[in-house]
C-alpha cells in the first residue's frame, strides 16, 4: 500500500496531539519531540485504525522514521 506523507500528517498530528506538527520523509524519532514510547503507541493505534492495517510485533519495534514506516506500509 502506497501512502503519501499528506495522508500520514493528520494521523501523526492526532497521535501526538499537536495540530501544528509538520513532518517530512526525513523525520524520525529523534527529530519529533512527541515521538516517545507513549507517542509511538498512540501512533500505531491511529495508523492501524485509519489505514486498516495491522503491524506485527517486529514491525512495531522497527518503525523509527517516516521512511521506515512508508516502506513497511508499501509492503502491505
Amino acid at each position, binding site marked *: 500500500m502506497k501512502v503519501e506523507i499528506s495522508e500520514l500528517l493528520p494521523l501523526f498530528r492526532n497521535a501526538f496531539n499537536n495540530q501544528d506538527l509538520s513532518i517530512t520523509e526525513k523525520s524520525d524519532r529523534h527529530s519529533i519531540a512527541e515521538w516517545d514510547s507513549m507517542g509511538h*503507541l*498512540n501512533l*500505531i493505534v491511529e495508523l492501524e485504525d485509519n489505514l486498516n492495517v495491522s503491524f506485527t510485533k517486529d514491525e512495531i519495534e522497527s518503525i523509527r522514521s517516516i521512511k521506515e514506516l512508508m516502506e513497511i506500509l508499501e509492503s502491505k
Partner: protein
Amino acid sequence: MKVKILSNVVCDPLSAELKKIIPFAKLSTEYHEDLIVKLNSSTSLHFADSEYIFIHCDYYFHRVVPLMNREVLESIYSFASKSKSLIIVSNSFINGYSDGPVWGSPGKHLNVLFFENDLIRKILSLNNIVFFDYQSIIFEIGFKNAFNYNLGHLYQMPYTKKMLVLFAERLANFLLFYKTPEKKVIVVDCDNTLWGGVIGEDGIDGVKCNTNSDGILYHQFQKFLRIKKEEGFLLCICSKNNFNDVYEVFNKKEMPLRWEDFIIKKINWRDKHVNITEIANELNLGLESLVFIDDNDFELNAVMQMLNVVKSLKFDSDYSSFLTLMENNVFKRKLLTTEDLQKTKQYEDELLRKEEMSNSSSIDEYIANLNIKLDIRKNDINDFVRLSQMTEKTNQFNFNKKVYSVNELSSFVRDCKGYIYSLKVSDKHGDYGTVGLIITEFSGDDVVIENFLMSCRVLGRRIESSFFSFVIDDLSKENKRIKDVRFIKTPKNNPAEEFFKTIKL
C-alpha cells in the same frame, strides 16, 4: 470531577479519549503490573482527593490470573471500605483464567462469580462501590475488534482505537451518571407511546397494547414504566386527547399500567409545555427532575425549545431504538432507598393533604388536624444512605448545598466531630419518611450548625422550627452553645434563607 484510573494495563490512551468527552475532568492514571498487591498495600490516603477511582484489572487480556477471583474481590472490598472515593470496579476480572491446577484444565473452567454470591452481596452492601460493565463492551464489538495483542505485548496497552473510543464513551457516561442528580418524574404521551394507534382515528377498541407483534412494544413499555414506578419514579400523562377517551382505554383494556398508576394526568388540548410546567408545580419539583417521552417530533421540539431543562426523549416504534431508549441513564437509580420505593404513595398522601388544606378555614386548623408526629434520631447510621441522598437532591430548604457521601457522614460520626440529627415525619395520612437533617460540628463547648436541610415535601407545616428547637435543647443539655450557622445563598434556597433570618443565637 477528579478521576483516578488504576489498572494493570496502560490506560493513558483511554484517558486521552475520555478527556475529549469530558474535558472538565481531572484525570490521572496509574499502571501497576500487580494491581491487587498494590491495592492491599496502599492506604486510602493516597487517593483521598479523587472523587472517583476506577479499578480496571483486565484479565481478558492478562489471561493468567495470579490470584483466585475471591482474593481479588476481597482486596477490592477492603480497599473500598477504607476509601472515601466512589470506587468504580470494571467487571473485567470476572472471567479471568486462573493458573490453578483445576481451573486451568479445559472443561473445568467455570465462571467463579457464581460461587461468590455471599462476597458479591458483601461488596454491594458498601455504598461507595459500583461495578462498571466492561464485559458488555467486549460482547458488543468482540475480542477481535477490541484487542491489539501486539501492542499489549509491547506496551501493556492492549486496545484498538475502536475499543478505546467505545470504552471511553461508556465510562464517561457512567461517571456523568454519578455526577448528575437523578430524575424523579416520567411524563408520557398516550397515542403511539403508551399504546399503538391513535384513539381519535382507530377508536378505543382499535388501539393496541398486547403481546402480539403490533402491540408488544407498547406492552413492554408499560411494563417497564411499572417497574420504574416501583423504583420511585412518579408517572404522569401529558396527552392531547379527550379526557374521557383516555380514561375509557384504561377502563376497558387489560394493560400492565392502570389509570391509578399515574399521579397526575394532563389530558387536554393545550400546549404540552404548559401542562408539563403545571405538573412540576403541582408536585413541588423543579423542571430538571422531569423526563418527557413522546413519539411526535413536533411536540418534542416544542417542549425542548420552551423547557430545555426537561429531558425530552423520543418514543420510536423501531425495536432497536426502543431498547436504546429504555437503557437511557435517566431511568436509572444510583442507590435505592426505602423512600424511593414508597414515593408514589407519599405524593398521593400529599395530594390528599392539599385537598384537606383547601377545606380548612385556617392554616393553623389544618396543621393541628394533621396529627403530625416527629421522630428525631441522633447519629443513626441506618439513615445515612437517605441523608446523603438528601444532601444531593434537596435544593429549596438547604442551608449551603454541601453534598456529603455516606462515607463522609460515617467518618464524621466515627471521629466524634459532631452530631448528625435526622428527622422522620408522619401524620394521619401517612409516612413522609426521613425528611430532615441537621449536622452540628463541635469546637470545644461551642457548636457550629454545619448544615440544615428539609425535604420540600414537609415545608409549610412549621416542622422546621420544631426540629431546630429540639436540636438546640438537646445541645444545651450538654452545655453546648451554638456559635455559628453556616448559610450560603444559592439560586434556589430562598425558603432556607427565610428561616435563617429568623434564627437568633
